């Protein structure tokens, strides 16, 4: 049994390293992204083996789902011809150099330029380049060896903070220790994290309204699929939010699943009506952070310390904050997927 588990672990570890290497070294960007998605899938299995089902849930929703969709959408908006292996005829690389693919380009000088500028080391000069790469490999090997040595010399038994968490779990309002840490003991982490999400969205929106591609008609199959799947996604998001109090789950996992529902909706061609993309959307986006801050301020005014919940209210407060956070995380991630600020107000 233990032997089999070790074999499983070793195989998984090897596959992770190998996939990461192939994803990063592949000359074809699309292939790199698919390999990266597979990498995310295996990461979720690694979290399972490390007894971290909460993280596995987050990784399943984000690493294997949302990140892949984000990368694919961004790649589609880059110039098509800058990546190959993409049609009915695989483009064969010219001999001698498998990096630069030059095939007769139509009208687009920019893309031709891009094609000749496939990934290449940052120094132009051949000899300097070899020296640079050699130096880089040597110094990175030294770094890896140093980090590996540091890891291996750590004591093999170190309970960390698990005993302190277990000791005060009773008063936290929830019985899942990870949720207790996220929403109670280190609630300020989560508070700031919601701020980071919002900042990322501000960054994307600051580029203004980018004219969007017209979505073609989804067709009956995709339409039906989204109609069947989106209610399940929303239901599962609610389930994860609720179950997070006593079992793996919680606001982040629920929010990511909700975001997946939003992404599927956007991909089917649905857009938020311009009546709602102004204030109503913004209120939902800041709801998570807003509720959190209000709770924190009220508790301080009542004489407590920052985010120190009275044990009798803790469960209700955590559920309130988590519900708002789930909604905000879901909508923010879906808005990030859209990649630009939606048009607001009356049509110009």
């Amino acid at each position: 049994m233990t032997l089999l588990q070790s074999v499983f672990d070793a195989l998984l570890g090897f596959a992770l390293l190998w996939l990461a290497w192939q994803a990063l070294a592949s000359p074809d960007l699309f292939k790199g992204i698919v390999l990266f998605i597979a990498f995310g899938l295996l990461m979720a299995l690694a979290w399972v083996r490390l007894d971290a089902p909460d993280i596995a849930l987050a990784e399943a929703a984000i690493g294997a789902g949302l990140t892949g969709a984000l990368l694919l959408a961004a790649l589609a908006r880059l110039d098509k011809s800058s990546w190959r292996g993409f049609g009915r005829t695989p483009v064969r690389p010219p001999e001698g150099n498998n990096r630069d693919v030059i095939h007769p380009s139509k009208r687009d000088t920019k893309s031709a330029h891009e094609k000749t500028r496939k990934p290449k080391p940052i120094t132009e000069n051949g000899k300097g380049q070899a020296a640079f790469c050699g130096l880089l490999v040597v110094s990175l090997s030294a770094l890896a060896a140093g980090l590996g040595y540091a890891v291996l010399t750590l004591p093999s038994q170190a309970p960390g903070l698990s005993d302190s968490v277990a000791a005060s779990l009773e008063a936290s309002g929830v019985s899942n220790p990870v949720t207790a840490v996220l929403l109670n003991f280190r609630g300020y982490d989560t508070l700031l994290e919601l701020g980071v999400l919002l900042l990322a969205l501000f960054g994307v929106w600051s580029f203004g309204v980018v004219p969007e591609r017209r979505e073609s008609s989804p067709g009956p199959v995709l339409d039906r699929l989204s109609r069947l799947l989106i209610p399940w996604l929303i239901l599962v998001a609610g389930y994860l939010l609720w179950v997070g109090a006593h079992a793996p789950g919680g606001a982040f996992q629920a929010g990511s699943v909700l975001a997946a529902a939003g992404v599927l909706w956007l991909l089917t061609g649905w857009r938020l009506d311009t009546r709602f993309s102004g204030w109503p959307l913004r209120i939902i986006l800041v709801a998570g952070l807003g509720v959190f801050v209000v709770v924190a301020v009220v508790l301080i005014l009542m004489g407590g310390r920052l985010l120190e919940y009275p044990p009798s209210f803790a469960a209700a407060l955590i559920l309130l904050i988590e519900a708002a956070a789930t909604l905000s995380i879901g909508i923010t991630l879906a808005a990030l997927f859209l990649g630009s600020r939606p048009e607001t107000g009356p049509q110009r």
Partner: protein
Amino acid sequence: MNPAFLYALVGVGLFTLGLYALIVHAHLLRKILAINVMASGVFLVLVALATRTQGAAPDPVPHAMVITGIVVAVSATALALALMLRVRAETGRAELAEEPLE
């Protein structure tokens, strides 16, 4: 070998691989992938080391940090991708200029 250390070493390997790719590749999408791989490596080290609890449930604090980290990583990736598309729209290339643009 103790699985905690096995996965921690895999994490170190992922971090180094990602750093190498980040330095060597010029295309911004590859750099974004590389940073994501590095982040996965860091998360793996954190969570692997959190299992050293004499058979009891692992330390939940690193778990909470990693969950936060995963969500931060995906939002940062989305922002980075938007920036990359912006660079592409301005310069026609999805790479950073080697010398400052006039």
